């Protein structure tokens, strides 16, 4: 078996089955984005004809794209799998945590609170996520099984060596493991897989007309109820698509005429800007932004 997509798929299915075999209460973090949609597809292949040995869990920031939420609900219903939704807004109210402020108020960092609360509420010992090592430099150092302490913290210097096909998920009570089955996939691999497997996606991944404002750094931000425009902002209608589906307040659109997955692959082959660079406002803050968020319990 030398085809690279077959090898990547086999590795991901092996990791999903190890998770089901090693943990008592795993969960699959599902956002309605392309990476977690691929995870669901891989879980079907790993556990069919049985049901998933874990629920789908979504931490809803309240700033999600309505198209992604609708897709999430439809997919869970179609598969007949259990979906648990916990809202960042509820955590903020309950704990008196101040909401994100500013022109583009991002709840990206705040969702860590809800994630940790949800892990505690359901006593999840493993959370499967769609993060990939090619996304970011700190993620390039992450293991498939990433052990977190009871505060969800990541210690990059104390990571367990991972050898061959052997994953050590032994933990003490209170600890949990973040599992990343598609660690070795790149953005292009994900799209090639979506094409090969004919996987359905939310519509905002493809070209559509959208009202946007252009930020100082040239990113295209959609206008919506959470974004505060000032007098200087010019709202324009552009033909765009989303390369990643995060929050409406911190995910930028890219200009695109891609109507299908093949078009997107062509577009990416010629792209000069990285996935997170093109679409995320939050990683531009500092060189170690992701490393710091992960140490604090972020995915």
């Amino acid at each position, binding site marked *: 078996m030398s085809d*690279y997509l077959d090898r990547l*798929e086999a590795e991901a299915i092996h990791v999903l089955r190890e998770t089901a075999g090693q943990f008592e209460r795993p969960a699959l973090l599902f956002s309605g984005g392309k990476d977690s949609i691929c995870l669901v597809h891989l879980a079907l292949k790993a556990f069919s004809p*049985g049901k998933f040995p874990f629920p789908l869990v979504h931490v809803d920031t309240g700033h999600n794209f309505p198209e992604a939420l609708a897709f999430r609900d439809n997919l869970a219903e179609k598969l007949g799998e259990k979906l648990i939704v916990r809202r960042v807004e509820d955590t903020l109210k309950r704990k008196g945590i101040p909401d994100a402020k500013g022109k583009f108020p991002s709840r990206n960092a705040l969702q860590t609170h809800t994630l940790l609360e949800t892990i505690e509420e359901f006593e999840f010992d493993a959370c499967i996520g769609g993060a990939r090592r090619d996304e970011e430099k700190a993620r390039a150092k992450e293991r498939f099984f990433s052990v977190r302490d009871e505060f969800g913290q990541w210690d990059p210097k104390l990571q367990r060596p991972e*050898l*061959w096909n*052997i994953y050590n998920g032994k933990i003490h009570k209170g600890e949990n493991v973040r599992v990343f089955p598609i660690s070795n996939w790149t953005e292009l691999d994900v799209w090639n897989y979506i094409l090969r497997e004919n996987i359905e996606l939310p519509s905002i991944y493809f070209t559509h007309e959208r009202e946007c404002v252009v930020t100082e750094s040239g990113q295209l931000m959609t206008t919506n109820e959470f974004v505060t425009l000032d007098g200087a902002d010019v709202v324009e209608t552009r033909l765009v698509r989303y390369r990643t589906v995060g929050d409406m307040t911190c995910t930028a659109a890219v200009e695109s005429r891609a109507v299908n997955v093949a078009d997107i692959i062509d577009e990416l082959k010629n792209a000069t800007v990285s996935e997170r660079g093109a679409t995320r406002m939050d990683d531009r803050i500092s060189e170690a932004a992701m490393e710091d968020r992960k140490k604090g319990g972020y995915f």
Partner: protein
Amino acid sequence: MELLRFFTAGNVDDGKSTLIGRLLLDSGSISTDIIETLTRQSKTAGENTTIDLALLTDGLRAEREQGITIDVAYKYFSTPNRKFIIADTPGHAQYTRNMFTGASTADLAIILIDARNGVTEQTKRHTIISSVLGIPHILVCINKMDLVAYSQERYEEIKADFEKTTKSLNLNKVSFIPASALSGENVVTASDKLSWHQGPSLLEFLETIPVEAVKMNNAARFQVQYVIRPQTTELHDYRGYAGTLWSGELAAGDEVKVLPGDFVTRITKIEHNLQEVPTAKAGQPVVLQLEDDIDISRGAWIVPLAKTPFVSNQVKATLCWMDNQAFRTGIVKLVLQQGSARIKAAIKEIDYKIDIESFDKLPSDEELRLNELASVKIRLASPLIYDGYDQNRYSGSFILINEYTNQTVAAGVLNNELVLD
């Protein structure tokens, strides 16, 4: 498209991260926004003219501050014909365990030698690890050729020294390439300054060598990871064994043995990719259904009747100790994990240690320290089903877990022998 996984190893200053940075940059795998960030960082780190390529792989803050690679960094790039996964591993001695990790999944090792220094202690350490882990192909890249005036004589001298030094190691294929990662000579394109070198550039080499699987016997080895039992009205009696077929081939109708337990049964159905298939092939994740209703749990092996693995509660192995805390015989409670199987274990004897400089066997001092290689005898609470590592990478490898800390404290490869009392 094929996939080639390789790892790089070298001394702290051999320019390992620079070489990878060069491959990524010159093959067009780095986006402009990342180059901009790097230019900014290179200035902060004190370099003000060119991009510090090492910053591409040194992703953690401590690594950037200390200018060393601490952990394995995985990097990806592709050319029209191949996708590459690089495990960039630390050169510093205290992180050798991470190199063992990066090497365990590699099809190829790139061992970097600084042309000024020649073969060093760490070259030998990295080569012996490649040997222990049975890496199918070793590429020795003699780097920093610019600093020895692109001397062919120096290159030949190092090559001869490497061949002489590693003669006793039983290496698979070895190739040599001269290069200068910093200036990009012979990395992506052939170099005029190294015109005496008859052979491909590094990238041409990586693109064209055959992807060789690690040596495996062709006996079928399937390990159960998870038992699928839908227990629905339609699938009331369904019981499927999910796992990966690591080697060989299995077909519906085959008579097989289930170990442990020595139970003989027949495969009634194979599912792969949500479909029923007549055969399962090496590397495929599949679900097997069996004729008899037997109690089979996670970690059990399903194998052909003709070529069965060893079964014993004692094994001999070569292992690399990976924990900061040294091991003394009899002190720590250990669990051995082989694929999906876990068995309580104890290291009973340290037969000898392996000197990584001379490759000689040294008498044991009853203690295993971080990064030491040793030949050991392990006793298990119940029998292990295994093959020699030289026969099968998956049924022949294991890790040891400390039962108190849950840390992975060692990794090992099993000898191809049945050990009896």
